[in-house]
């Protein structure tokens, strides 16, 4: 039941928040924040509860919905979804904080949409019924459309349309694939069901499974986003309000990655293996293309948006490498990218509130005026380029080690991506904070609310970089479920160099 509550709390929060906003906008914000913090406390509690144990599925809940089709309300949580949920509510709460001053107009409706998006995302991470998955996938769309389209910047309507149509097109193709799987399973076993667990190991012809896999994959690959389906992302991220960008980059993109890990790989293992070289190639293309384009952008948010394309290329690369190390790297990348890019968007928003522009050409030499902001930005810029000691390094390193087993040339190219990341990351610092400027800025540095927002992010990214063990351990339980799902597939096991990833390698000890 607790899984149902996790999803219901933001819904109730959304409604309450909207109703209350007519009376008091501040109360509405507090309610939104409170509901997300409540959920954060719940999922963190579950995490801490697990300790060492908890193999496989932690919770499982099911209720009938449309029995004529074999559709049930089926929710389940394992290590992967738990970790993703913690990220969801963490970033969700922070996004409420970041819009505290930014969103003044119709704040009630804004928070309603915000909380509904979070609900959709939480639902996506928890659901085990394919119809319900599609349902939540779509539920994420409309509120996000409103968030971008109403509270966004100048080209918000164009960006909102693009986001909506791209995602919907991918989703509809996935619906076809879901139904294909549904009927193949029924033809084989006579049972009509959308239940994930029943649909695993459905025997089917190789070519059919390839088509179905592609159908699923297209939706995730648009969401991820992978080149060449990425062009919705720069517009959506740039034009969205800050909270919208944070949720887009931090969470929505991760639903695509999650979909690949949870659905594509376990449901169609053989077809996924067949497609793996192409998928990895797309990943590498994303890393390099996205990275280069990031460097070329004149708009701060657009630059950060393209870095998302680049980082998610690593995810695609690692997901199709089919080994344990890469898998750990993929999930770490999902988390740390969410945090670092979310933070960068928050900083962009915070900066925008002060100077009302996103154009890099109009910034420069801000360090003397905003040293605190500069420092925080420096930390996340370093994270983005993969500096050891921060979380992203762990993630990218694990992915590269894992994909080295699978495909050497592509890994070499991907490693070049690290250089490219450095180029664009340092450009941010150079253009915004360093350099000469004639303008006299009389700007306030970070205030309390902003510190409350950013400090946890800084702490988490450093913590993940130095002590990733808890996350990796939680993923053990998920690995169990995903391996069981993959069944008899022979996985290219990495030699057990996970030992080298233990915290002792990274803690700062004088005698190492």
């Amino acid at each position: 039941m607790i899984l149902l509550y996790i999803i219901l709390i933001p819904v109730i929060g959304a409604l309450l928040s909207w109703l209350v906003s007519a009376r008091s906008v501040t109360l509405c914000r507090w309610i939104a924040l409170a509901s997300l913090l409540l959920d954060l406390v719940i999922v963190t509690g579950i995490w801490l509860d697990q300790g060492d144990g908890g193999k496989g599925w932690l919770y499982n809940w099911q209720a009938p919905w449309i029995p004529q089709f074999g559709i049930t309300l089926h929710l389940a949580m394992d290590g992967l979804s738990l970790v993703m949920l913690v990220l969801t509510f963490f970033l969700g709460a922070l996004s409420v904080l970041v819009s505290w001053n930014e969103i003044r107009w119709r704040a009630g409706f804004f928070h309603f949409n915000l909380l509904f998006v979070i609900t959709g995302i939480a639902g996506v991470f928890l659901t085990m019924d394919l119809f319900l998955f599609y349902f939540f996938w779509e539920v994420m769309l409309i509120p996000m459309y409103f968030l971008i389209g109403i509270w966004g910047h100048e080209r918000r309507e164009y960006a909102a349309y693009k986001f909506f149509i791209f995602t919907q097109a991918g989703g509809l193709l996935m619906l076809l694939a879901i139904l294909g799987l549904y009927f193949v399973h029924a033809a084989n076993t006579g049972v009509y069901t959308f239940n994930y667990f029943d649909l695993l190991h459905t025997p089917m012809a190789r070519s059919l499974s390839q088509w179905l896999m592609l159908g699923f994959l297209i939706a995730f690959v648009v969401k991820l986003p992978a080149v060449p389906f990425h062009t919705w992302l720069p517009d959506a991220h740039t034009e969205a309000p800050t909270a919208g960008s944070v949720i887009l980059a931090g969470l929505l993109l991760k639903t695509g990655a999650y979909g690949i890990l949870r659905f594509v790989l376990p449901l169609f293992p053989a077809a996924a293996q067949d497609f793996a070289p192409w998928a990895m190639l797309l990943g590498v293309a994303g890393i390099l293309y996205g990275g280069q384009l990031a460097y070329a952008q004149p708009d701060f948010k657009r630059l950060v948006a393209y870095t998302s394309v680049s980082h998610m290329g690593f995810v695609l690369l690692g997901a199709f490498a089919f080994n344990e190390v890469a898998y750990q790297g993929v999930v770490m990348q999902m988390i740390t990218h969410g945090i670092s890019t979310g933070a960068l968007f928050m900083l962009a928003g915070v900066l925008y509130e002060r100077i009302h522009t996103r154009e890099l050409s109009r910034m420069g030499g801000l360090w003397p005026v905003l040293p605190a902001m500069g420092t925080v930005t420096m930390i996340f810029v370093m994270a983005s380029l993969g500096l050891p000691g921060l979380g992203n390094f762990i993630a990218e390193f694990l992915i590269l080690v894992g994909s080295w087993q699978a495909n050497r040339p592509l890994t070499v190219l991907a490693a070049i991506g690290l250089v490219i990341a450095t180029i664009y990351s340092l450009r941010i610092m150079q253009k915004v904070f360093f350099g000469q400027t004639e303008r006299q800025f009389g700007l306030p540095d970070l205030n309390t609310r902003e510190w409350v927002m950013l400090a946890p992010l800084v702490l988490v990214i450093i913590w993940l970089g130095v002590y990733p063990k808890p996350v990796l351990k939680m993923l053990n339980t998920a690995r169990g479920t995903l391996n069981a799902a993959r069944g008899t597939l022979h996985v290219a096991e990495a030699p057990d160099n996970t030992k080298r990833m233990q915290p002792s390698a990274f803690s700062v000890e004088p005698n190492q």
Partner: protein
Amino acid sequence: MTFDDLLSLGPLFNICGGAVIAMLLVAIWRNHRLVYYFTLLVYILALASVVPVAKLLPHIIAPLVVVDMFALFNSGAIVGSGLIIVLLSYNYFEEREERKEEYYLLLLLATAGALVLVISRHFMSLFLGLEMLSISLYGLIAYLRARQRSDEAGIKYLILAALSSAFLLFGMALVYGFTGHMDFPGIGAYLQQAGSVPLPVVAGFGLMLIGIGFKLGIVPFHMWAPDIYEGAPLPVAAFVATISKGGVLVVLIRFFQDVNGTQYTMLWWILAITAVASMFVGNWLALTQQNIKRMLAYSSIAHLGYLLVAFLAGKQSGLEAIAFYLVAYFPTSIGAFGVLIVMSSSVQDAETAEDYRGLFWRYPWVALAFTVMLLSLAGIPLTAGFIGKFYIVLAGADGNHWFLLLMLVINSVIGLYYYIRIVAMMFRTTETPQRTFIKPALPLAGNITLGLVVLLLVGLGVYPSAMMQLIQQMMTLIR
């Protein structure tokens, strides 16, 4: 006629009797309110009379009429939709026309025609019902005599409907001439034991398709739709969009079943091409349309295309899909027109997209209702329209018609654009150049009706199994 016969025709008798008495009422004492309430009463009685028929099924009144579960279900849907339309009509006509009472008369007659269509199993009753429906519509579409567009629409509909009825008659004559039967099962039986199908019969089927196709508004017989939807009074446009199409679709399904139409692959191919063409033409034409009435006309062309995909899939799931989609589509369409009705003032219809600019910030509940209707038309989850579309895709997947489904998916994406465009317009926040908006009427009856429709759509979208169970039970009895 036995008592059972009379009872099974209950809804039809109620409506027809109501029409006659309404005519007398108008003759004795011309009063809008009186006729309005009386018509409401008639529709409610007709809806109530659906219930006792349920235990009599199936009941055949040879050779013209069959009352089975499918017919009864659709009769209920038609009468229910008619009721909603009447509820929305009062305020619309109150301000606009001196002689308002005849509208209700014509509406009752048109509904009666549609009811005859859904129970017919014979060419005579088919034609009778169709003509009753069409001729009433001639008057209804041109009802607002003072408005230029109304007359134009009426004349266009008259000529085109007469043309397609002529084709229909010729087709029926050919089929009768070469099979010797006019009742659907008879034709089916003849063709079964005849071996090869005589060419004139096939040609007859094709000609009948023209007549049916016009009424359904599918390509290439769709061209009347935008002009008629624009010119007709809004409640009448709602009627044309839903009941008129639904009635004809039911009789088409019944005919196809009895004649075993699935064995004629050529007919299947023609329908398939028509379906794909309707989807594309409807969606392409609606893309930049600023007049909402015309946009809804094009959208209904596309939706008939979607419905035809389910029809082409055949099988049990296809029929169930059609039934559910009709249940979802009727309230959605009527609701969309209902929003236009409540937003219209007494002199001008709220028909351009500009009239809805920033509607959410002016009248949030109406905007929300319209958003739900549009999202249901687009097939977004949480609405009945999504379940309907899902059902259609399921039926298509069951029959392995992947090409058709791919076309459906592509068209759904195209369709998104213009539905979301209206939603975006309602939520638009940029300051408009000084513009006075139409002062909407927002009648109480209309608002309440809209609210109930919204609840129905969202309810069906979130919990469809009760309706699905009903439909599945019904479908097992269709043969």
